[in-house]
């Protein structure tokens, strides 16, 4: 309901900020944005609060070119990226220096690059158009994502959820372009394997 309302305002009048209704209008949305990206409830709540407080401080910088929600989301997004950056640098060099050959040996034969027998993809045997099945598969997927190393999840999330440019991700998270692709590859191999293991 509140979304429809704010969109109406967007099309009819210049956008103004209405902090008295920020929480009612946007808190759930911002919380869901945050929790899906960092998956720690308390931290996600804190981020929502920080976002509103930061927004209050720069209220006079709002130019009315975007909707109130878009503006707030942009502030939150920067905070999420900060957390990604902290998390991935905090985990030390082990995850950043990727020994690809070494790690891929989990999945592929080191000599010929074939799938190892135990890791070959198997059909999930479901019709992804079935909403119920789909929902369950998604919840497993979410759990699988949380098992990824922090840096991988950050890279994966920034690329797939927010569709950031590769350059920006590499810069923000300090990974080289070639490591970026290695991470994308590894993350998917692990996610797919995790789904297969927990679904079938």
């Amino acid at each position, binding site marked *: 309901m509140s979304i429809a309302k704010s969109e109406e305002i967007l099309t009819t009048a210049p956008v103004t900020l209405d902090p008295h209704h920020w929480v009612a209008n946007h808190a759930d949305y911002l919380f*869901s944005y945050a929790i899906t*990206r960092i998956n720690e409830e308390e931290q996600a709540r804190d981020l*929502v609060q920080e976002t509103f407080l930061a927004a209050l401080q720069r209220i006079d910088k709002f130019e009315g070119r975007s909707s109130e929600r878009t503006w707030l989301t942009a502030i939150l997004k920067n905070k999420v990226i900060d957390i990604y950056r902290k998390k991935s640098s905090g985990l030390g060099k082990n995850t950043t220096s990727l020994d690809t050959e070494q790690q891929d040996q989990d999945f592929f034969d080191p000599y010929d690059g074939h799938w190892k027998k135990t890791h070959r*993809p198997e059909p999930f045997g479901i019709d992804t158009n079935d909403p119920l099945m*789909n929902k369950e598969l*998604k919840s497993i997927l979410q759990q699988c994502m949380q098992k990824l190393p922090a840096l991988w999840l950050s890279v994966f999330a920034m690329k797939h959820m927010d569709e950031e440019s590769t350059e920006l991700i590499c810069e923000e998270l300090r990974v080289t372009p070639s490591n970026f692709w290695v991470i994308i590859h590894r993350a998917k191999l692990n996610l797919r394997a995790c789904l297969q293991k927990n679904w079938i």
Partner: protein
Amino acid sequence: MNELKNMIYNCRKATFLIEKKQLAALTLREQLELRIHLTGCSFCRLFQKQSIGINKMVYELFHPAENREIRLDDDYKKKLQERIEEKLDKN
């Protein structure tokens, strides 16, 4: 693994290209290599199908429209709005 194995048999490289292809453009050579590999490898064809499906699910999962059921609790929201009002009063 010093010698470069022929791409036709290399599933590691093929899955790498499958991932890359979904996010960026492959070179002509890469496209050709991948196509040849996929013609002969049912595992990687399945991997590709599932990988595309996963990306689609991830996108849906984190697209706001799908997440209406995630909510902050009302208590927290009430306190949050109070805090905002407090700050507004000060200014």
